[in-house]
């Protein structure tokens, strides 16, 4: 459903994303990993239209979307979360999500938007109370709100940027389950950026690794976890845990 080829992003003289090509299939969860500053969020920004690519093509459902403004892309069905949550603090939690529901789905009906908001909030486990304020949300709550906003836009492809950062382990597991549910129940395709390998490897179907803006590896979790280059630039001594997690995932999938 998504086909990216030759994607490049330069900031001044610095190339943050360098000639990256990949594809994502319907119903898949693709893990996107790589060292800090390797260009993951930048790719998300280009996919969602927040940044215009310097060059390259992004085909989504057969249409070229590279360089379209964000609202057009969202209306075509790509939803995203931000790595650092960006809630609208002057709106209530419900309004935050209803807003995304209304505009993200092409401004059709307010009723539909509010239904979508209720569904999404319930899905991520936030209260559907219409007056609850964002100020009361902790780190985990804000991450959930990001997800709920993205879901309310009724995406077919969800870009989740570090949905687990700063969560405690209990909540991390919950969140991972949530992502999987989103795929399983709603049939939403997901690209997931995360640094917590123990969780990521258990959930994703496929992994792509970036370094210095270039793709250095791609494949099944177990294969990537064993790739010496990935271990060197990214996993380090975490490699064992990662491989264990990948192995467990394969076992579960197989069984």
């Amino acid at each position, binding site marked *: 459903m998504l086909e990216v080829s030759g994607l490049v992003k330069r*900031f001044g003289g610095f190339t943050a994303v360098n000639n990256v090509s990949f594809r994502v299939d319907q119903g898949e969860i693709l893990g996107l*990993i*790589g*060292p*800090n*500053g*390797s260009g993951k*969020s930048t790719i998300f920004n280009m996919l969602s239209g927040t940044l215009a690519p310097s060059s390259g093509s992004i085909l989504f459902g057969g249409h070229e979307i590279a360089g379209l403004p964000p609202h057009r892309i969202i209306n075509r069905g790509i939803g995203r979360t931000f*790595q*650092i949550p960006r809630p609208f603090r002057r709106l209530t939690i419900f309004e935050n999500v209803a807003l995304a529901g209304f505009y993200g789905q092409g401004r059709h009906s307010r009723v539909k938007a509010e239904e979508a908001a209720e569904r999404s909030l319930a899905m991520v486990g936030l209260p559907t109370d219409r007056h609850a304020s964002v100020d009361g949300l*902790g*780190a*985990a709550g804000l991450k959930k709100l990001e997800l709920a906003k993205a879901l309310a836009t009724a995406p077919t492809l969800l870009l989740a940027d*570090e949905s687990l*950062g*700063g*969560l*405690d*382990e*209990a*909540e991390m*597991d919950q969140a991972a389950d949530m992502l999987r549910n989103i795929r399983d129940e709603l049939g939403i395709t997901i690209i997931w950026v995360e*640094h917590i*390998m123990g969780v990521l490897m258990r959930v994703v179907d496929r992994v792509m690794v970036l370094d210095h803006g270039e793709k250095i590896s791609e494949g099944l979790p177990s294969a990537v976890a064993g790739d010496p280059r990935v271990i060197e*630039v*990214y*996993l*380090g*001594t*975490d490699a064992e845990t*990662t491989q264990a997690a990948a192995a467990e995932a394969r076992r579960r999938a197989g069984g």
Partner: protein
Amino acid sequence: MLELRGVNAGYGTFQALFGVNLDVKAGEAVGVIGPNGAGKTTLMRVISGLIRPSRGAIKMEDVDLVATPSHKIVSLGIAHVPENRRLFPQLTVDDNLKMGAFMKEARGHYAERLEVVFDLFPRLKERRHQMAGTMSGGEQQMCAIGRAMMSNPKLLLLDEPSAGLAPVVVQQVFELVKRIRASGLTVLIVEQNVQQVLKVVDRAYLIEAGTIRASGTSAEMLASDTVKEAYLGV
């Protein structure tokens, strides 16, 4: 070295800490763990003076921190790496580091400290003229730690330093904590990454809903049922 007795603190009418007692001895590395919203960050803030306790005593080497204006607390040797980095996004990396050495006591050693920090994080040296706000999450974390190191502190407060970092870098950070500690610095570190953090600290506190639930050496904590059940959510 650092001593908290019966500290209450909060935000407006909301109380986040309830009678917290905590000790850090010189040269020690101490961890603080606990679920989201437990009050860990609040604890760090109350030590570095960003918020004021509503009750209780805080002492650093016998100096009463409660009576010290917050901008003077740094010169007592406490450096705080805040949650979410809090860099100055429109300043270059260099200028951010410079801000870390703002105190009179630190200005003289600016050049030396800069060397130390660049040694720790060569990436920062490469990017010294980039605006901090445009760097990746991990680079920003390095910059934040570097900035705190610039003041040549005795006690380093680290609030979730590994959040958002790539596994290799997380390793590095924990290595770094070890090294910092080995160099004689005292470290108080808040982490979600319990397994990892307990490997590098001597002792740890478990905080939950604003109160200290358990404390002990790393080994004790790893073994403790309270920790497992309350925190690891098994």
